[in-house]
């Protein structure tokens, strides 16, 4: 499936883009993490959470929509 992945903050510095289409054949968030680490090795050193359809999800969540975002630590306020 084709995912639309958004990158924020320092993660976008690593990927050098804020959003991209990403062709993906796995099932779970953990599979996606691995696929992304293959493409962007520097991501593996970074602390981030993943949101699916604007909701934070854990590694064993299945991917059911194409709206994915990688979120570095929050710094609001």
């Amino acid at each position, binding site marked *: 499936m084709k995912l639309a992945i*958004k990158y*924020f*903050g*320092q993660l976008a510095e690593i990927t050098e883009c804020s959003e991209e289409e990403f062709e993906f054949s796995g099932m779970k968030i953990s599979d996606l993490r691995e696929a992304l680490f293959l493409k962007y090795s520097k991501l593996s050193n970074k602390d981030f959470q993943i*949101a699916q359809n*604007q909701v934070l999800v854990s590694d064993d969540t299945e991917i059911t929509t194409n709206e994915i*975002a990688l*979120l*570095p*630590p*929050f*710094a*609001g*306020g």
Partner: protein
Amino acid sequence: MENKKPKNVFKEGAISSQFIADSIAKHQSKTGIGAHNIFLGQVRADEVNGKVVSAIEYTAYEEMANQKFYEIREAAFEKFDLNCMHIYHSIGKVNTGEICLFVFVSSPRRKEVFPAIEFIVEEIKANVPVFGKEIFEDESHQWKVNS
């Protein structure tokens, strides 16, 4: 699932003291209010390894952030007896000494506003996807993390 569309909480650049004054003045027709509490976040000129922060550039996952602000708002009204509540957060560049977060709660009674404002601010810090690039005077930067 909520049907109401969340308001946009973000404002481009710093939040001015005049904007805050106008917001306070608008509440003077609400004569059931007895107490207001206002929290303001201000950008600090922190020193890191001999370099001084001159601004923070805020970015956000805006759709998700506005949804989170909406959920925090609903939770605050559920937990506390509030007449009204407002949240504004900066997006883009805010210089040191300028205001980047404005949270405003009002209640008939003071006892409600103290825990309410703390709850809202802590929820924002923990759960809203906002990111801050601390820009030093020499144009280098580091990424802010809430503690």
